[in-house]
């Protein structure tokens, strides 16, 4: 894809992201942050590409490090978000708590 199209994509995504995220209540801001944080590990896509293209051993290693770092970000981020979100429970009328998320 050419650079101008990608730049347009950058702008459009930023605007959509801004809209969608504005609706998230402050109650969920920590999981939102760790969730979007996991998404920033999407840079693993770039890391995979450069690691695959690298010829020199040093470059290959750097690429592998980039993949490892990004994957820690992705897996750690999503899992920890899951852990947090599962804790959010709604109180019921009879005072007993049930896990809404099941």
């Amino acid at each position, binding site marked *: 894809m050419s650079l101008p199209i990608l730049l347009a994509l950058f702008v459009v995504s930023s605007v959509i992201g801004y809209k969608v995220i504005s609706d998230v209540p402050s109650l969920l801001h920590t999981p939102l942050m760790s969730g979007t944080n996991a998404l920033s590990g999407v840079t693993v896509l770039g890391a995979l*590409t450069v690691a695959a293209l690298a010829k020199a051993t040093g470059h290959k290693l750097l690429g592998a490090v980039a993949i490892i770092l990004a*994957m820690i970000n*992705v897996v750690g981020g999503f899992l920890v978000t899951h852990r947090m979100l599962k804790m959010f429970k709604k109180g019921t009328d009879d005072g007993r708590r049930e896990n809404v998320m099941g």
Partner: protein
Amino acid sequence: MSWVNLLGLIFVLGTIWGIKLMNSPMTAVRGNLLGSVSMAGAIILTLLAEGIISLPLLWAAMAIGALFGYYLAVKVAMIQMPQMVALLNGFGGGSSAIVSLLALLGLLGDISTADRLTSGLGLVIGSITLSGSLIAAAKLHGKMNQRPIIFKGQSTWNNLALLATGILFISLLVIPSGRISQAALWILVLSLAYGILFTIRVGGADMPITISLLNSFSGIAASISGLAVRNPLLVAIGAIVGASGLILTRLMCKAMNRSLSQVLTGKTVLISKKPDPGVSLSEERRFSQRKPEADTENQDDFLSHIRNAESIIVIPGYGMALAQAQHEVKKFADILEGMNKEVKFAIHPVAGRMPGHMNVLLAEADVPYDKLFEMNDINDEFKETDLVIVVGANDVINPAANTAEGTPIYGMPILRAYEAKHVVIFNLDTKPGYAGVDNPLYSMDNTTLVLGDAATTISKAIDGISTGKDLV
């Protein structure tokens, strides 16, 4: 549209839909799952589209990263969430920096000026995110002093680092390609240095802003490195994360009465506005000696207030988290509810060390989320409330924010606890909060101070209430 682009679009939409589901606790788990599935799809798609799916190096690296990530996510305690997010953030930024660096080194073939621009930017922002986040994580984890580290001429050094990076960055666009690697290395070093300089001067209570900002950076870095390697998925999802971080940064700034430009120029530290920051610690001690001490006779007094109250609002602060008192607080709230009192929780946006931190800690203690109220939703209720119970919060309830012009917290929106009929404060001590401003609420007539470790003092209060109930 090719199938690759079509699938890519679907994964981007899946990601956006996933975030959209995050707007309610009922659907948020599904939203997160949708996000992770979209990410897995995007990874597989990239591997297939680039024809690199069979390379063992990639799978080995992914497996190692996934294992580490799994380990971290399972081990981390909820109170450590801020440093966890900061750490992961740093890893993401580091990865983006490496991707941009390798792109600059010509891995993807000859690079145009536009490529140099995007790769260079990715390198700068990624590196700042890496070093800045690691410093923030170290501070939050107590591996570094939480207090701002300030030295003479710091602003000058900050600006110099930024200026030098800028000059190198411009030179990157025009120098012959043979010298790119040298310039890139210097940019890397200077950006890392700037990230460190920028974060060491940030203290504990300013962390919510800093973490949000770094979160935004990591998204922008990913997006820009996506421009560098021409991956539309990376561009789109990175941009969404960048926007998300910016929103949270703005919210946090508003909640602390700071402008984004103040944050961006490194003026995040309240204490740096004092003429000599070195004395701040001893000054705090002096304040604390001057303050009224709570006596034990208060005990019966506040227990009777608690017994007589019908409507109660609990205000938790970072002190509750430090004392790990959230389980006691929950038990206390349950007992009070059992006595047919109405109990609500009021959460200030910057309570804790990251946006929404208090909510997570209370959720961990099984406090149902429909009892947690945002500042703007509950502030009008204080004047009709019989009793406010403060647990480890200070600046966010300090009425001086309305009146004390010239102090760091002046103009910061606060929870109007002082409007309630009575206030009981469970704090460790009467030291001023992070902002260093005395809290007039402490010496008000309708305030009872219960000093000491919140977990202990609240357990005692629970005992007092329960035994009192038996006597009746």
